[in-house]
């Protein structure tokens, strides 16, 4: 954990910290999360949470989700997805397949949940360190921006901060309300 925080702060120090400060000053919280949340959500929190053994049933409470989650690109939380669905690669909507590692960082989308008609922040983590294609590819990319807003950039590899750079598939994690 300490090491991860170090590495998180490492790049914040060298490059984005001043930017983060500035954005935090001039923008609302949502806008800030959209820009910087990927690092928070995907990177630093991850190692504090225990691994999930519920075999794919780990979706969030409070979303009004049906028991069976849709498996196609049109599923609401995939609104900004760009990648292959881990649920078709041995993982689930929120779980990387066995033997792969979630990306430390991620891009973030804002998706409307039709079950409660609220907007949620969705973190798109790549699953890293494993070769081979798998799963349907989705390219909805709503809210996508080029790398000048890196936290929204679905065209980046998000295994870029992991030691193992190979990209296997992508998961979609509902990490916050976007109101």
């Amino acid at each position, binding site marked *: 954990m300490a090491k991860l925080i170090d590495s998180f702060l490492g790049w914040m120090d060298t490059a984005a910290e001043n930017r983060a400060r500035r954005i935090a000053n001039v923008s609302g919280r949502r806008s800030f999360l959209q820009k910087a949340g990927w690092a928070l959500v995907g990177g630093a929190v991850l190692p504090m949470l225990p691994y999930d053994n519920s*075999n794919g049933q780990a979706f969030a409470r409070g979303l009004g989700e049906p028991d069976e989650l849709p498996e196609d690109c049109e599923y609401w939380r995939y609104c900004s997805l760009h990648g292959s669905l881990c649920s078709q690669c041995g993982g689930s909507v929120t779980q990387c397949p066995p033997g792969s590692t979630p990306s430390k960082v991620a891009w973030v989308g804002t998706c409307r949940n039709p079950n409660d008609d609220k907007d949620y922040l969705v973190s798109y983590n790549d699953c890293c360190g494993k070769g081979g294609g798998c799963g349907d590819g989705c390219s909805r990319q709503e809210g996508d921006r080029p790398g000048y807003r890196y936290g929204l950039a679905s065209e980046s590899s998000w295994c870029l901060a992991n030691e193992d750079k190979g990209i296997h598939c992508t998961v979609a994690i509902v990490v916050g309300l976007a109101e």
Partner: protein
Amino acid sequence: MANRTAAAFGLLCVIAGAYAPTLAFAQAEEFVPETVTTKERMDPGQNVFVNMQNWGGGPSVAYIYDAKDLTLKGSVSGGSQSHFTISADGNTAYMASGYYPRYDSGAGEHVLQIFDVPTNALTKEIVLPYKLAQYTDDIAFLRLSSDEKLIYIQNATPATSVTVVDLTSGTVVQEVPTPGCFGIYPTLEDHGFSTICNDGAFTTFTLSEDGTSAESQKSAKIFDPDADPIYLSSDRAEGNLLFISYHANVYRLDDSKGVIEKLSVTPIAEGVEGNWGTSGYSVVTYNEPNGILFVPMHSEHHDGSHYHGSEEVWAYDLKNKTLLYRSPLADLTAIHVTDEEVPQLFGLSLKNTKIYKFDVDPTAKFAAKQVAEHSDFGFATTLMASP
């Protein structure tokens, strides 16, 4: 969980000194944020393994499908031009492959990687002599000894030899020269293997218990490599070895006596109209409880057509030497049948880059019909199933 998450964010916020102390989702009453995790273990059940060889300087992948419906359950990945096998219980996977420093150039290394199947985790990597066969995959290239203490690995530089690895110590214990011979067919007892030689004979190598030494014995001529060449593909039938030729003659061999002996040659297409020949790479697969051999076949076969895709899969009763049924299964280049009373048949199509599952009906002469398929692998010529 919510508290822990909020605490985590809070901690970071303090440290980074740039964030409000609470974030939007911590304020929501009902909503509990999700976390990204890794699924630790594949769902249990019978698996089918397909070794996708990467010939383009990138990673090969063994895909692991649910035998029930061909859902993709996981995968393990290695280097280029992989060879692959699994333990008898299906819980350990072995891949031998090459890694090159500039992908398509540079002197690299050949390695044996061992994976825990349920977790898809790499558990061990053993560097091999830099001689690994770079050859369209067959199960004859990476073989466990029957007690799974040794593993035999095909080399070709193009001089051929076999690397012997002691899996207990994780070390290379011997390189057995096998000049003019190719393919590894381990003995059922003790340590050793047979190999097919250029003059149509087999050589059987009997290894010491620790695998460090070998004695060889060459058989009489078993087949004519000019007139009736056999594939590398093989299976066991009641303890014997089965091979098949381009022209669909089945060779049944005894390897239990330290040297190969020919028991029978059965021409399965004899008398069938249409000049049928064998079709594909993994072309010999035998269902033991029923004594049925399954072979992908194509008509009007000719010189050079032996790796073409199938038009049919034949169910042949090897005990009664009877062709039972010709299922119209097109484009298959590899098949594998399970050793169950009601067999499951799996097939690969190079043309369609798909894996198929076929139900086989023992009450209908072992007719096979497709019940599932899955796409998205690349170049694959071998497949195997766990029990």
